[in-house]
């Protein structure tokens, strides 16, 4: 019955970046997922972007994020991520999803 299509299985134990429907960006290690795209994220921290200050990171720990609320799950390339200087990054926050 499983679709066999793009499973998140290849991303388990990888560092991923989740973009939620309200426009938040949470980075962490994928521990588990299910067909509804609910995910279990370990060592998670939220990256808050703003136009005024550098990126803020809020540490969250172990989280379950409900699939309904997920827009994008991205595989973070650690080398690229290490090159980013978050204190210099300025951007408008992501927009929330509207259906």
């Amino acid at each position, binding site marked *: 019955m499983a679709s066999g299509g*793009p499973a998140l299985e290849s991303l388990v134990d990888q560092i991923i970046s989740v973009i939620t429907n309200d426009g938040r960006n949470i980075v962490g290690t994928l521990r588990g997922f299910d067909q509804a795209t609910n995910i279990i994220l370990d060592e998670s921290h939220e990256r808050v972007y703003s136009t005024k200050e550098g990126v803020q990171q809020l540490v969250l720990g172990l989280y379950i994020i409900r699939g309904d609320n997920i*827009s*994008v799950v991205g595989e973070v390339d*650690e080398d690229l991520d290490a090159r980013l200087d978050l204190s210099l990054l300025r951007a408008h926050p992501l927009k929330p999803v*509207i259906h």
Partner: protein
Amino acid sequence: LFFSYFKELVGKEVTVELKNDLAIRGTLHSVDQYLNIKLENTRVVDQDKYPHMLSVRNCFIRGSVVRYVLLPQDGVDIDILHDATRREARGG
């Protein structure tokens, strides 16, 4: 119908525009029954405006947040699509 259509497009470069206005360009890696899309070689179209995905190279996009999928001009065989749609409409 569109599930099989997207399976034909695997390997082509597409741009996915999401409902939060984010536009992501990449190569279609796979698609599933919910039309969730996996893209490789991802880059955000307006990277200065949306730096959030600068270190992301592959991503999984939930079908429910896709507003459009912009297809390559030469990736579309209009007649085949027309026929398939007519068949679906009749049978559906």
